[in-house]
């Protein structure tokens, strides 16, 4: 698959704060790319740089094989976006809003298509109502309709499920899957709802404090055969044992009296046996099995 986005050594500094620090990643055509991180990790800043809302301090962004700074208009014509909340003109109707954004997209769109697009997101009956009378879920659907009106190749959704009720979240999730699988669109989706990402994303990037923690295929990262194991025990003795045994090659980190190793889940009983055999009192051995655990593990200070 072709690369749609290639980001190299992207950095953004706000006075004393480095919001994004030397970040590199790539998004392939047709995939749903999950962008994960805790609040303040630098997700929104990165997404805003992809949309030219924020100027990078350093680094380059290529989208559709073109440099974003040099081919801004050409690239943005092919991108649809929702940035955090779908803030629209509340004093205008849904039809007026979508009409306005259609004109700004730089592509001629027939009027009938605008109505069809509103019907697709379930707003046919309310298209003449002012947006200020809409619920958050309806606004989100209208925002999505506006983002899709010019049939963009790439869709960037920053926290698209923010403020939605469970039904709205499910609708948004289905919409993302449909856009990717049925229409072949490439999506970059950021969210703090990791369980959602686990369902919709093909690849993902986890960032923490503006830095890349891990990037890869979601299935590979969550391979049940290859687990992260957290050991709570007498740290000094346990570490001494691990470092002087074959387990040393699986050792990943030690923090707050927790020793973290990566190995096949089948090895856990053997590992436990050996710890006991070496008189190491084990408080707990825990296998991290969900993306959420993985995410929390990777982004923990």
């Amino acid at each position: 698959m072709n690369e749609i986005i290639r980001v190299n050594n992207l950095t953004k500094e706000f006075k004393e704060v480095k919001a994004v620090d030397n970040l590199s990643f790539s998004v392939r055509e047709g995939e749903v790319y999950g962008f994960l991180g805790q609040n303040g990790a630098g997700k929104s800043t990165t997404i805003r740089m992809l949309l030219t809302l924020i100027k990078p301090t350093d680094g380059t962004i290529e989208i559709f094989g073109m440099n974003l700074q040099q081919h801004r208009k050409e690239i943005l014509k092919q991108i649809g976006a929702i940035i955090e909340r779908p803030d629209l003109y509340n004093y205008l109707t849904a039809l007026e809003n979508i009409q306005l954004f259609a004109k700004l997209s730089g592509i001629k769109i027939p009027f009938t298509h605008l109505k069809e697009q509103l019907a697709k997101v379930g707003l046919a009956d309310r298209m003449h109502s002012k947006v200020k009378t809409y619920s958050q879920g309806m606004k989100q659907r209208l925002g999505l309709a506006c983002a899709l009106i010019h049939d963009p190749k790439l869709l960037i959704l920053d926290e698209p499920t923010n403020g939605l009720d469970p039904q709205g979240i499910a609708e948004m999730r289905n919409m993302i899957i449909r856009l990717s699988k049925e229409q072949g669109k490439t999506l970059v989706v950021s969210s703090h709802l990791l369980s959602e990402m686990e369902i919709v994303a093909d690849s993902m990037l986890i960032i923490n404090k503006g830095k890349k923690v891990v990037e890869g295929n979601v299935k590979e990262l969550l391979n049940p055969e290859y687990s992260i194991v957290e050991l709570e025990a007498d740290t000094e003795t346990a570490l001494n044992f691990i470092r002087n045994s074959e387990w040393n090659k699986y050792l990943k980190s030690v923090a707050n009296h927790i020793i973290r190793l990566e190995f096949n889940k089948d090895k856990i009983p053997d590992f436990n046996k050996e710890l006991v055999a070496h008189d190491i009192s084990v408080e707990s051995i825990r296998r991290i099995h969900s993306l959420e655990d993985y995410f929390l593990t990777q982004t923990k200070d």
Partner: protein
Amino acid sequence: MFFTILRIELFKIFKRPRTYISFGAIAVIVILVQLALKVNGKDFIELYTDSQSDTFEIPYNKILNGYFVCVAVLHMILIHVPLLVALIAGDMISGEANLGTLRLLGSKPITRTELVLAKFSASTIYVILLLVWMAVLALFGSILLFGQGDLVVFKEMDWHQMNSYDVLWRFFAAFIFASLALTTIAAMAMMFSAFSENSLGPIVATVCVVIVFTIVQQLKVPLFEHTINPWSFTTHMLGWKGFFYVEKAADGTTIDGSIERPMALVRSGLILLGYIGLFMSITVWHFRKKDILN
């Protein structure tokens, strides 16, 4: 693309209820002034002619015609219109930031310069429409209510009298000049708007600047008369009055089609254009490099 954005900006302006507050306010003020002059017009003229009324007979009824009332209306309300202009222009960029729509606009395939210039052009069109509305009400409304005649304008101890056939072009020119003056206010409000993330700040800042410079101008102390006032935009905003001050022949009669100090008007116009250029350059420069965070 510029004209597409301009049409969109005008559409947004005229879809907002607050836009019509200005039109409503102008209508109310003009009608109130016309009503007051209809009832107490003689008293109003006496304010200016009191010292001369003992020397010769003042033809109050002839002076109090539609043209005179229109000039009186302009004197009374043009000083307040900047507030109404700031209400719209001060909200053009910061209002979008506050609403969250600026990031949607910023991620569209339009340049930021195009966006700022389209917004400024939309504000200018709004200013012109506001003045056309004022002209219709103040000029044609007053002519309907008070009739036509020669125009008399008081300037300190001087009377400037213009023949009725020599008046309409002066109003036309004065309205164009007032448009330029109010566009200067719109440009300043837009500049403040580009630096702000909320709607109220730029509106208040614009009004404060106008008030401060107006006070400095009215103090008439030498310190300011020779330093700030010759270059203050509030001084030159009042240049429209110059179209109603005429040259006199040796026998004291008015020279038709004349203006007392034409070069002063040209200078004022150029200074206002300079301010517009300065304010808009700062706006474009800042907005192009601005990080859109809201």
